[in-house]
């Protein structure tokens, strides 16, 4: 079966084509079950958009994948390495291979934008200081920020610029996978559109796999190769946006068929 057409999570893709593989993942907070037997494959080089109502655990899922919160059960494999393995070498192999842009940017508030971008460079590379500064500036410019913003503190930036600064830090090491948690939330439509274009451009240039959590239907349309819908604790449907819309049932048809969905997707 061609992955592009599948509506349910497909399970027979060879390992080397998969960037992120989730098998039987469960997450619960006490008695509240967020995910149960969740399977998902993210292919290398694709942009996957994760949608789902509020409280369906999109961010929880991301935190389980990037090693911040252990899943209650199941296996998370990223680029062939088990994220939650007891072997520290497995985890170390993934260091510096992913970049994460958190919902509110999570920039270090006591560092300037340039210093923020330099943090991963200082931690993971042995670049000479001069080159480190230049590479940091390069990433800042690539993220679409003006050079003058490099010396500013995060608190001096607008929301959109903060997101770009967070993106610059996320791509500092040219990661294989980029995680974006609601990158366009709170941005005006023009800025959001530019951000989508920027993500596409970076993905093309850097050959990234992008894991994108969003509520923004425009972003789904413009930036995502495939869309995975979370509901009832698992991935209820996955596939290209158009394909998903044609076969939408239940929550998904409400999601796409509502006035906002129709307005955005036509």
């Amino acid at each position, binding site marked *: 079966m061609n992955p592009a057409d599948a509506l349910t999570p497909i399970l027979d893709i060879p390992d080397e084509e998969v960037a992120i593989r989730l098998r039987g993942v469960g997450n619960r907070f006490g008695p509240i079950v967020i995910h149960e037997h969740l399977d998902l494959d993210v292919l290398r080089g694709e942009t996957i958009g994760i949608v789902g109502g509020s409280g369906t655990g999109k961010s929880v899922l991301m935190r389980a994948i990037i090693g911040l919160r252990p899943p209650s059960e199941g296996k998370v494999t990223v680029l062939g390495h088990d994220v939650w393995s007891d072997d520290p070498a497995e985890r170390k192999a993934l260091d510096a291979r992913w970049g994460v842009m958190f919902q509110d940017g999570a920039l270090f*508030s*006591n560092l300037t934008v340039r210093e923020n971008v330099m943090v991963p*460079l200082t931690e*993971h*590379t*042995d*670049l*000479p200081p*001069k*080159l480190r*500064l*230049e*590479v940091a*500036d*390069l*990433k800042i*410019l*690539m993220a679409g920020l003006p*050079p003058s913003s*490099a*010396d500013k*503190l*995060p*608190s001096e930036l607008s929301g959109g610029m903060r997101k770009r600064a967070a993106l610059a830090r996320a*791509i500092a*090491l*040219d990661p294989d996978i980029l995680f974006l948690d609601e990158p366009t939330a709170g941005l005006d439509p023009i800025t959001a559109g530019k951000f989508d274009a920027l993500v596409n*451009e970076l993905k*093309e*240039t*850097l*050959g990234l796999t992008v894991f994108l959590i969003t509520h923004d239907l425009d972003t789904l349309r413009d930036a995502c190769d495939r869309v995975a819908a979370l509901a009832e604790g698992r991935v209820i449907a996955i596939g290209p946006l158009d394909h998903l819309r044609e076969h939408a049932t239940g929550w998904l048809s409400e999601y796409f068929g509502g006035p906002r969905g129709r307005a955005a997707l036509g």
Partner: protein
Amino acid sequence: MPEQEAQFAIDRSGPAPILRVTGDWTIHTIGLIDAELRPVRDLVEDRPAIVDVSGLMDLDTAGAYVIEKALHSSVDEPAHMIGNHPVAGRMLAEVRKFTTGCDAQPEPVAMWRQLLERVGRGMTQVYEESIDTIGFFGETVVACGKAIAKPSRVRWLPTFAVAESAGLNAVPIVMTLSFFIGAVIAFLGKTILQDFGASVFTIELVGFAILREFGVLITAIILAGRSDSSFTAQIGSMKMTQEIDAMRILGMNPMEMLVVPRVIALLVMFPILTFLAMIAGIAGGAIVTMLTLDISPTLFFNRLNDNVGVDQFWAGMGKAPVFAFIIAIIGCRQGLNVESDVISLGQRTTASVVQALFMVIVVEAIFALIYMELGI
């Protein structure tokens, strides 16, 4: 896959120099080669330069940046690329757009100028802080006056909450420390006064020291550290999450909601804590004098009553509301001055405790002068 060392060679046999790059040029490998490549940047001047990527393996944007920089390549005058590579063409073209902007380093400022600037900024800050504090003091007095005129407007729930956390919960620490200070004073008095054969005056020493100075001072110091930091942190984080703005919009006055309850709570609790501190301090002194000087409790309290008197108690107690007011308004003011970043929260909390301690000691000295003039 192990990384291949990044290497380069310059071929000047042709009409234009050719930069041949081999191996992996990624952010992890270029650190070693950058120093070698940097002088070459100025050698490859006779453009158009050419880069040969046929031996190139892995390439990322940082590697592409170093190559483009060495070739002095720009969008107007792009370097030529020969050889085949899956991503090099696209990567070099993408990075080329930005190479000119990356040299804009901040201009270094001379050391002496930095020093002068900091001194100047510090001076104006002290001035502005003083003006602000006085302004805030006035604002608080007005808000408290309104509260007195119309007690129904006072928010009693937060007032009691603050009274509990800042007052009641501080009782054990205030009493314990006072007890020990009382004991230490008694030991000191006994040791020194024994030389004059006047060790019985230890009782008067304990009485004067605890009632007049230490009971209230220890309470003030503990509350300055304990409550001021928490006032500043509480109000400061509310400021950071825009809760204060929300209050203003909803027509609630932050002075009335946050400052007045804290001032009232401390004004009530501070004298009570001071009273308890005095009791504990006297108890500490009494136990030490009784055990080391064989003085009976009756004698101790008789001498305390006759020679120290209730005046000293009121002299100490009289300072309590003043200290309470100082501590409450400094904590609240610093909290309201927190900005939206974490550093300022830390700075303000520190400033709050330091200013409160400073003011407590200064006012204590002023009181000492006043009492001396009054002959108390």
